[in-house]
């Protein structure tokens, strides 16, 4: 059974704005990245899958159920983490998550038990007895994830789960998402405008742009194509780039870094040897995350 499928799914707001334009896709369970620029239609798609928005035309199914007629049943089996703030400041995490568990249909005792488990899973310990209003952004994101998980959904919909987090917070949240999807086996859709994040946690990627499906493929097929290695040395950036080009690599200077194309593993050794030969001091060696724009430009050009 397909996790989600859509047939010519279209959503217009008024007569001017087309949020989704004849979207057709079939996705199997896994951790699915839904990537697109702001306004590409990610949140609209998630809301249609939840049965909260009615498509203008076309159809969509979640877990084999039609979104327009079986919305309540779908919502009982799906956990949703919105992009925006959605937490009451005057309740504690424990009170709020257990309340949402009961709203999702769990009896009171099961709600209490699962609240404790899920809050521990997302890494909230003693703080869970404090009012949410005093939480950091990172803690609030964890509570949002916890309320989406507490009723043990078959499908998790996460809308920009790393929104507003610092780099360390992003890493932790992404680790949490990956663990939830792989160890617990809960199918997950992660919407993000950051391709780098999607790449780190997802097994499958859906790219949409202006409401159209740009790509739908396993994540591996993207990473093979456009790897870039950024090399920074203290002095001699130009000399390094020239020598690397001599050795048959595609290298160019970009600010303080030399960017080297990575068709395979070979450039790593060549870069190491060249830096050593020139006697340069290496300050940074990093595989560049692909930027969404690159991906989209490549696809538009193709």
């Amino acid at each position: 059974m397909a996790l989600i499928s859509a047939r010519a799914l279209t959503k217009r707001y008024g007569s001017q704005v087309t949020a989704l334009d004849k979207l057709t896709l079939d996705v199997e369970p896994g951790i699915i990245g839904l990537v697109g620029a702001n306004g590409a239609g990610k949140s609209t798609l998630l809301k249609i899958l939840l049965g909260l928005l009615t498509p203008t035309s076309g159809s969509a199914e979640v877990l084999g159920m039609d979104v327009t007629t079986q919305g309540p049943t779908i919502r009982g089996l799906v956990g949703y983490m919105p992009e925006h703030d959605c937490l009451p400041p005057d309740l504690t995490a424990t009170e709020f998550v257990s309340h949402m568990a009961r709203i999702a249909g769990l009896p009171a005792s099961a709600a209490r038990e699962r609240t404790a488990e899920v809050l521990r899973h997302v890494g909230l310990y003693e703080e869970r007895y404090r009012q949410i209003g005093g939480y950091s952004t990172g803690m609030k994101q964890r509570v949002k994830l916890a309320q989406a998980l507490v009723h043990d959904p078959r499908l998790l919909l996460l809308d920009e789960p790393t929104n507003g987090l610092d780099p360390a917070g992003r890493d932790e949240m992404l680790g949490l998402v990956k663990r939830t999807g792989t160890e617990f086996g809960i199918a997950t859709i992660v919407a993000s405008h950051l391709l780098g994040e999607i790449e780190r946690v997802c097994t499958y990627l859906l790219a949409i742009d202006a409401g159209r499906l740009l790509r739908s493929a396993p994540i591996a097929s993207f990473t093979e194509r456009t790897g870039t290695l950024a090399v920074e040395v203290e002095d001699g950036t130009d000399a390094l780039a020239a020598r690397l080009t001599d050795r048959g690599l595609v290298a160019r200077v970009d600010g303080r870094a030399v960017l080297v194309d990575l068709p395979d593993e070979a450039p790593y050794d060549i870069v190491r040897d060249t830096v050593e030969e020139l006697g340069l001091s290496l300050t940074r060696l990093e595989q560049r995350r692909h930027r969404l724009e690159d991906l989209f430009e490549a696809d538009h050009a193709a």
Partner: protein
Amino acid sequence: MPPDTMPPAPLEAGSSTPSSGAIYDLGYRRYDGPRLGRWHAISTLFWASLRAAFGMGRSGRAKIVPWGLAVFALIPALVAVAIIALIGEGISPFTYDNYLWQVQITFALFVAAQAPELVNSDMRHRVLALYFSHPLERLDYAAAKLGALVAALLLLALTPQLVLFAGNLLTSTDVVAGLRDQAGALPQIIGTSLLYAVTLSSIGIAIAAFTPRRAYATGAIIAFFLVTGAVSTILGEATRGSLSDWAPLIDPFALIDGTRDWLLGASIDESPVTGSSVPLPIFGGVLAAVVALAVAVIALRYQRVEA
């Protein structure tokens, strides 16, 4: 105590060699118990909202207004019972007919303070988006919130009248005869309480549902009761004849009292309804229209509100 005799520190979750006192990571456990669905969600929201209406489970500050108003509504009943006990029956200024009319200001203030408590926070902090992503429909949410405020006002209205009821019963010389006398008042007590609770709750929620800002909602509800009451009084005093007679129809409290008079009997001196020549069923009709309009406004608003 030297460090080497310290008990072993608890191991991290997931450690492969747990010892005593360790935290065991049981891993993720699936939930395969019952999923109770929509009605369970509605009743959960109703009870949580009813508790919130009295500041239960909230900070002490959130309890001051609702409990303070509940005490204000109760004091006249306690005084009346004291008078009956000390001096004797028959001289109490409070009857079941006029009790709620006398303490109507506490109802207006309770609705102004607590209707926003129930609906504005969810809108302002966008908790609505979470509610609507569960098997709870938009109208279910509105119904649970309205129901909770009606229940809260019923508690506020019934408690003092039942105190009065108990006081009258316990001080009567013949308890059995007293019970027979007093039992006749039960329809009046319950019916009047229902009229106040349903009317004021639906007006309060209908106004509060239009703004996410709690202070604006409270101000708007107070303004509504003040303006309707003032316009009704001014029209009643400053004009003569039929216009003056119809003036009470503007005041929601007069509408409630007129309907009470029509359905349950017993005019009260304090109410402008008593001096009006407008037939009582018209009060009932206008009140029904006002409540229907308020409920329709709530339903439409929650069908469309952004979540």
